[in-house]
């Protein structure tokens, strides 16, 4: 059964990419919705299978690790597979209604969408360093293609900038991979970890980790390497922005986190861990500050992503040479932050898209007074904002709580300040939107209500982000599952 699920998981997105390429947008929509159902079922099935029986290695082509490519199917990976299924299907349904089917180039939306999805799955499950590189490129190029779709000058500019940053990041990562291969003779992460368990750390391997993490940080848009992100996420169509902010940046972060958790202790050092944490903190502050100053609605949301990504990098200092329980808390907190930000940010971008559809403008000022039309999407936006502000009972709050505990538990109280300040700053930019909508001095009395199906999707996502905090225990429990180790070399 599990074998079928795995094959389905790998096959479906790629197959649907092919199918949708052969149709036009309207047909592609129908085909895609069918595929979404399949993919969600498969992801859910895999999640259930793993939460029942524990994780396992899956050798592709029947070859085992050092020679072949093994996928690492554990609780965390399937959680993210499921998250991807949820967010991507939401974006897929939204895009089906949101995107104008009459523009001929939009037919290419669906194949790119499906390739992106397959790349994400490849990254969540990847256990092979080079395979992860290919997965990253799959994601980057399809994301760039999606941003550039339609080919307006500003979009091209943003996508070029994005492409160059992504390529540079990939190269840095690949260089690190090359060093790892030269040093250990294997590309399997598990193989490297296995060898390091009972051997002294060989000289010269710190740079490999540094290069990989730096490259991935660039792809994740960690301050000060974040400047490609806001234009790309801000200018893309809203479902695309949602996908990019919710999932794509997480993919590269996920690899960096995996590498750090597996190799950080032997290959890293305290100064590097603190430095990454410091950059993350700077991202929180600077991203929020810029979000506060944007005049375009989607730019606010995009800069908010820069800030929220900053929190993720607190993983590095909070798991380096700390007690097992603190490290556990930090990992759980970061996992929750990834999930809740994915849900909340997708909701926010989709809601922003709806609001833009309603007011016909991307400017924050255009929202003046719209609150009296009780825009459903504004409410979704606000609920998603609750999670970004990490107020209870949202998933963002649960994440922040765990991170606070980890910071206090490890005596690194300075991150506490970052966490608390970040929450207040995000409140500032979320409420700025609200403030505009409550202002009663506008003459606008026309307000276009988008179709209910468009409005329901962000609401569902936002409610999930809120509800995540209530069920975070269950969500996290799957991470602590036993992992079948016999596949490791």
């Amino acid at each position, binding site marked *: 059964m599990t074998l079928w699920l795995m094959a389905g998981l790998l096959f479906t997105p790629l197959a649907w990419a092919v199918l949708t390429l052969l149709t036009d947008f309207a047909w592609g929509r129908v085909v895609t919705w069918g595929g979404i159902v399949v993919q969600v079922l498969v992801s859910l099935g895999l999640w259930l299978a793993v939460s029942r029986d524990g994780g396992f290695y899956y050798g592709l082509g029947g070859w085992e690790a050092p020679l072949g490519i093994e996928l690492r199917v554990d609780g965390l990976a399937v959680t993210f597979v499921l998250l991807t299924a949820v967010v991507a299907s939401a974006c897929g349904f939204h895009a089906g209604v949101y995107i104008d089917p009459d523009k001929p180039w939009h037919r290419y939306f669906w194949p790119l969408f499906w390739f992106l999805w397959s790349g994400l799955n490849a990254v969540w499950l990847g256990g092979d360093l080079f395979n992860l590189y290919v997965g990253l490129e799959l994601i980057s190029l399809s994301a760039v293609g999606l941003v550039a779709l339609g080919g307006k000058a500003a979009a091209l500019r943003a996508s070029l900038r994005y492409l160059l940053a992504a390529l540079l990041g990939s190269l840095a990562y690949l260089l690190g991979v090359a060093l790892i291969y030269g040093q250990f003779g294997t590309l399997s992460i598990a193989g490297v970890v296995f060898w390091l368990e009972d051997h002294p750390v060989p000289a010269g391997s710190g740079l490999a980790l540094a290069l990989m993490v730096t490259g991935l940080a660039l792809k994740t848009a960690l301050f000060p390497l974040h400047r490609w992100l806001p234009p790309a996420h801000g200018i893309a169509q809203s479902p695309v922005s949602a996908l990019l902010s919710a999932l794509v940046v997480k993919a590269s972060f996920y690899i960096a986190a995996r590498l750090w958790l597996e190799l950080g202790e032997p290959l890293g050092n305290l100064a590097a861990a603190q430095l990454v944490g410091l950059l993350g903190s700077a991202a929180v502050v600077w991203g929020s500050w810029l979000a506060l100053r944007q005049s375009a609605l989607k730019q606010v949301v995009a800069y908010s992503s820069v800030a929220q990504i900053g929190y993720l990098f607190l993983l590095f200092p909070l798991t380096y040479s700390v007690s097992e329980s603190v490290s556990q*808390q930090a990992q*759980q907190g970061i996992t929750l932050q990834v999930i809740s930000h994915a849900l909340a940010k997708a909701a926010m971008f989709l809601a922003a898209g709806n609001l833009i559809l309603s007011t016909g403008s991307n400017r924050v000022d255009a929202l003046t*007074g719209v*609150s*009296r039309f*009780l825009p459903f999407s504004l*409410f979704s936006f606000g609920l998603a904002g*609750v999670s970004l*502000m990490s*107020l*209870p*009972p949202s998933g963002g709050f*649960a994440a*922040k*709580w*765990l991170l*606070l*505990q980890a910071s*206090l*538990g490890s005596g690194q109280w300075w991150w*506490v300040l970052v966490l*608390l*300040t970040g*929450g*207040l700053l995000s*409140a500032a930019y979320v*409420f700025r939107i*609200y*403030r505009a909508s*409550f*202002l*009663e*001095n506008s003459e606008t009395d026309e307000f276009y209500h988008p179709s209910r199906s468009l409005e329901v999707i962000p609401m569902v996502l936002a409610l999930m982000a809120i509800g995540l*905090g*209530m*069920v*975070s*225990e269950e969500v*996290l429990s799957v991470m602590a599952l036993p992992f079948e180790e016999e596949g490791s070399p």
Partner: protein
Amino acid sequence: MTLNAWIPVFALMTSLVAALVIFLLPEKGYRLRTTVNLGAALVKLGLVVVMVWGVFRGVDYGLSFTMVPGVTFVLKADALSMMFAGLSAVLWLLTTIYAVGYLEDSPNRSRFFGFFSLCVASTMGIALAGNLFTFFLFYEMLTLSTYPLVVHRGTEKALRAGRTYLIYTLSGGAVLLLAIAWLHGVAGDLPFREGGHFIDADPEIHRSLILIFILLVAGLGVKAALFPLHGWLPQAMVAPAPVSALLHAVAVVKAGAFGIVRVVYDIYGVEASSALGVLEPLAWLAAFTILYASVRALSQVDLKRRLAFSTISQVSYIILGVSLFGPVAAAGGLVHLLHQGLMKITLFFCAGNYAETLGIHRIDEMDGVGRRMPGTSLAFTIGAFGMIGAPPLAGFITKWVLGSGALAAGMDWVIAVLVLSSLLNAAYFLPILHRLWFREPQASWPEERFWGRLETSAWLFWPPLLTAVMTVMVGVLASLPFSPLSWAELIVLREYSP
């Protein structure tokens, strides 16, 4: 799980569901919305009455589950929570009635009543929270749901007030979160427990505990409008009168005060707090706030702003009572939670009536209003005398019990504070009363009253009179069982001998 476990949840859900239904109703669905509002308020009142009876008999209402690893979500009804829950259930009903009349024909009513219900749900959650974590959850929810009410009018001034409100409360929330997280790190997940947890705490953590206490009080003190964290309250008076009435006389400020009570009694334990030496500074701070705000109230010309400063001063009575070590004083503080709510909401209702019926906002416009609106002015007078502490009204009970408590605790200076504050109360309320009844009207009223017709809309007329009557009743009948004072004594009994 038994039905008893679910009753607190139902009490919470009534207003939550009401909020959702109201959001989905069309703006024009006036009747349906009013029905939903009042229905939910009545159901909730019923549930609370059931719980009060149950708690009195010692029934255990509660539900808990793990939310975040290591942290539980706990809802639970004990004597203290019933006091707050009862207060908000009763006043929600009255305020809803009042608000329906007040906002008649004004725009954005769906939005208003939706958030209004959310806000009451939060208050209910605060009352029923069984640990600090759950308390914080609803405390922040309260902040969020009151913001739209504060900025309801959508004017620049309202939005500015809203911003101030958010800056204060969210920062307070952040400090509170820090304190709770720290406490969690030091001592684990602590349920609210009568008698507290730290009676024999390890001396090594004393320093941390003191620091955490300061942070907790700072975080909660924002909503309780303790000096110097009170700045948002007078500004927030731009909100419509029902909002000022329920939220700023009852829900928000009381949430802060209630939180401090919870921390002192059910987390630290009153003996441990006293042993840590944190109560006396708190008492000084409360006493200072009482006097400072009273002095500030003197110079306000806007009626609602004067009431706001009066609120700041009065809420600190609760904190003062709690921070005096001794059961009698504690009962005085706790009973004021209820008494002050009744009196202050009366005053705010009246202020709203003056504004809505006659367009009066400033005190110097109030000359002779007593003749035009005798019912409202009567209620106002009762409320004002209650505040001053004239026997046998609610405020007198409070001050009397507080004073005896202070003497019992050996803190005689509190008597001086009480006397001085009463004088100040008199100084800022009596001139208003004088204007109301004994001055000639300055000009003709926009709407002359004629015989056989109420002085204002019935929706607006009855709530303040009802609360005024209650103000009298809780004073006169203070010694009966189930009166606020008896209930407060019950709480104190359980707190001091758990």
